[in-house]
């Protein structure tokens, strides 16, 4: 943390000539109105992306974003302004705009000394863009394409994308806390289109994390994505129409944990519960899931896509138990909603960038392993579906209704997986879907590092995970009535 803070000062504050006395002056400007809490969020972000299609890396892109978000909070009111120029005059302007949310006067004292936050040390603070020569990035994508084509002559198109982000953030808070984080993020994605007898299908695979590009060479990860995308596409070539109606569903381990993100996670975010707009509001202590279910949001997993040393308000992340043995334990909080409801922040205050206001967001959300052998779970279903892979999902947190769309699924007949079926959307009710969990597998897996969550127009990287889950009844949106 001390090293991150040093690096943040060097790269964000010093070039702009901002020292501690300027920070005090900015805080002084903000706190000359009746403000309970204020913060400055300095950010520098460098992003690159390389795109391969039709056998060649056709284009690449590079972007730099930097700026400062200035926030002033008075009770439930938030004033917010930002500047994409890091310098004292524009920041004083932004502070004046933000503090206008409250009347003149003073609620909080300007800090006299700054104190570094105790963050975690979950990933190397290195720039991942510099972790591999450009020529090798191109070669990696070409190797991925060759590996995919090598799998099967029915592979007609391979599209692959390699991307990295290097981000330095620093939070300056009105309670005198300074926090910083240097966050790497890499991602590789492969889409394959196969064709046979005039029928075309696609398969998608990928992964990444908060690490360097080396990740894609370790354990054969990149070439593994190529093989996985081809495998999924070929399975889909054989798929027949999916059934329609409510039936038992078995979800595979790993990425199908998007179920938890949609059905449970969003509904347990502190803002919705403070406002009473979530179907889970006021239900702490109630049984909302089968006793086999324990669900956590854990921002402290090493190198994971959803992990953070400190959240975007400078609070260290933690492992928060949301549901324990089926009982709802707590919500995920940022500082604003924690303060207004008299609870502690849980390290879930996140924002897309300096130009966005923080709010409670998930990190890595997963269910702990249970007792059942996955095969036993499938064998217990007479007629239903097994869903192994998913695309995206969405939830209406007020009614609790959520969807997630299978991209690889199979029919289960008399306890056996029989044949692949076309992708279909599954729909359920968040507050009761986990009460219908009949069996939790012993094979907990986290997703490969592909999740991006959208809320109120802001995107942040997240993780999910779960063991194989047997659910007694879920509505499957196929076409076979």
């Amino acid at each position, binding site marked *: 943390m001390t090293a991150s803070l040093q690096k943040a000062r060097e790269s964000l504050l010093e070039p702009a000539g901002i020292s501690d006395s300027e920070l005090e002056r900015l805080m002084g400007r903000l706190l000359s109105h009746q403000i309970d809490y204020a913060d400055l969020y300095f950010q520098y972000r460098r992003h690159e992306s390389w795109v391969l299609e039709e056998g060649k890396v056709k284009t690449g892109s590079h972007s730099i974003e930097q700026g400062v978000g200035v926030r002033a909070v008075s009770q439930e009111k938030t004033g917010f302004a930002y500047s994409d120029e890091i310098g004292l005059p524009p920041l004083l302007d932004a502070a004046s705009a933000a503090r206008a949310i409250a009347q003149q006067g003073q609620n909080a004292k300007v800090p006299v000394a700054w104190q570094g936050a105790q963050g975690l040390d979950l990933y190397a603070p290195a720039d991942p863009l510099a972790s591999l020569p450009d020529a090798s990035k191109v070669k990696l994508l070409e190797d991925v394409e060759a590996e995919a084509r090598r799998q099967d002559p029915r592979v007609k198109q391979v599209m692959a994308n390699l991307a990295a982000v290097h981000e330095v953030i620093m939070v300056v808070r009105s309670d005198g806390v300074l926090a910083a984080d240097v966050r790497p993020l890499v991602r590789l994605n492969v889409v394959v289109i196969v064709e046979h007898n005039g029928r075309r299908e696609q398969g998608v695979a990928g992964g990444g994390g908060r690490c360097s590009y080396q990740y894609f060479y370790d354990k054969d990860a990149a070439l593994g994505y190529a093989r996985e995308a081809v495998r999924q596409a070929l399975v889909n070539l054989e798929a027949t129409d999916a059934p329609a109606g*409510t039936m038992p569903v078995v979800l595979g381990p790993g990425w199908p944990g998007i179920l938890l993100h949609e059905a449970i996670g969003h509904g347990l975010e502190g803002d919705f519960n403070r406002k009473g707009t979530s179907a889970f509001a006021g239900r702490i202590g109630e049984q909302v899931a089968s006793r086999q279910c324990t669900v956590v949001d854990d921002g402290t997993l090493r190198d994971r896509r959803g992990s953070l040393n400190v959240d975007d308000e400078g609070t260290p992340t933690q492992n928060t138990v949301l549901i324990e043995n089926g009982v709802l334990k707590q919500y995920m909080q940022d500082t604003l909603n924690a303060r207004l409801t008299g609870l502690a922040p849980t390290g879930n205050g996140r924002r897309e960038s300096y130009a966005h206001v923080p709010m409670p967001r998930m990190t890595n959300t997963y269910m702990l392993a249970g007792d059942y052998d996955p095969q036993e779970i499938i064998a217990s279903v007479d007629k239903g579906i097994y869903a192994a892979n998913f695309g995206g999902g969405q939830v209406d947190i007020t009614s609790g209704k959520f*969807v997630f769309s299978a991209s690889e699924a199979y029919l289960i007949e008399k306890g056996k997986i029989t044949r692949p079926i076309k992708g279909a959307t599954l729909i359920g009710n968040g507050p009761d879907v986990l009460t219908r969990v009949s069996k939790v597998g012993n094979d907990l897996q986290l997703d490969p590092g592909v999740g991006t969550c959208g809320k109120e127009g802001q995107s942040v990287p997240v993780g999910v995970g779960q063991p194989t889950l047997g659910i007694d009844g879920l509505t*499957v949106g196929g076409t076979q009535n």
Partner: protein
Amino acid sequence: MSAQTDLLRDSVASKQALATLVEKVLDEARSQGVSAAEADVSVGQGLSVTVRLGEVETVEHNRDKNLGLTVFFGHKSASASTSDFSAAAIRDTVRAACSIAKYTAEDECAGLADLKQLAKDPPDLDLHHPWNLSAEVATAMARECEDAARGVDRRIKNSEGATVSSYDGLEVYGNTNGFLGAIPASRQSLSCSVIAQDDAGMQRDYWYSVARDASDLQTPEQVGTIAGHRALRRLGARQPGTRETPVVYEAPVASTLLSHFVGAVRGSSLYRQASFLLDHVGKQVFSDWVRIVEQPHLPKAMGSTPFDNEGVATREHDLVTGGTLKRYVLDSYSARKLGLQTTGNAGGVHNLTIEPGERDLPALLKYMETGLLITELIGFGVNIVTGDYSRGATGFWIEKGEIQYPVEEITVAGNLKSIFTDIQAVGNDVDTRGNIRSGSILVASMTVAGN
């Protein structure tokens, strides 16, 4: 920030300032040895105020700027962008793009749009109506809007708030073929989302109005009242049984069907063979009475633009006539890949409109007699490669042409190819708030999954 405020204060001066910046970027690119380049510079500022349960919740001041650049070395290309307009940042950004281009492959289709396609004398489409909105006025409007929603019924018990926002932007695009054009545009909006509650649970719904010119917005009272009624009518929703049934997509969600259609006839989906509508130009895709036309020059419209993202002139032309696909949706690159001409669609479609029919929504429901009215869709279950379609839905069960009860926790599924040919009628209740304009759409038959 202060420099940028100046940039937008005087629109003639700001156009000149951004045009000079674009020239500077292109000059820098030339000096670094590119054979061609294009640059896009945008600045914008706005204010957004949310009131919840009668009190101000957030006041957000937005100020954005961005510079994007694509360079070409013969047939090799790369892009870069930055939010810093300093001379050093411009030099670094050009350098970053040039450095990437050293490693990208030769691609004979890469390059600027053809000279003869570029817009000459782009029309003024009346898109810029700055609104000097103060936080006080915005607060009063948002409060009036939310009050109207909460006043609809005592069962409107909670609120996600009402938001008034105003945004004023200027974009200048130029390339080394000599094109330079500016698009000043504003966007004003008013939205409200409230929650109705009874013993059975909570239901949320919303409404919004958006316009280039604040005087064209629905009144705060109208927006709030509609939002309140929409939330209220969802109370008591049931999950119906699984069945095959006719479906009406209410206008605000009907445009999603056309957006999937655009996804399938977009150049990038076609040359990658990632579409269920490959090689369909000249073929019947919809019923023979369906006409879908792009109208990029409608004054004040949200999707209007005088030229596309490559400076190519936009024009009114049909995408579908008599149910037959007339053309694809192409930019220069995908057009070259397919051996065709660009259709002025770099960046997407502009006011794509399905020609409305005679019926309003009640008449359309009468015409359907029995079936499902969809008012909201969730999820991403649409596969453009195969056309397979399966999404979560909320709406109403219709019998004898009348709403019977609200429904939820259902999916609607089919294949887009047959959904398109099964379109039986388009309403006259055209939703003009987006880039795709559609009335409510009646589809003859889809699979609805429930309990």
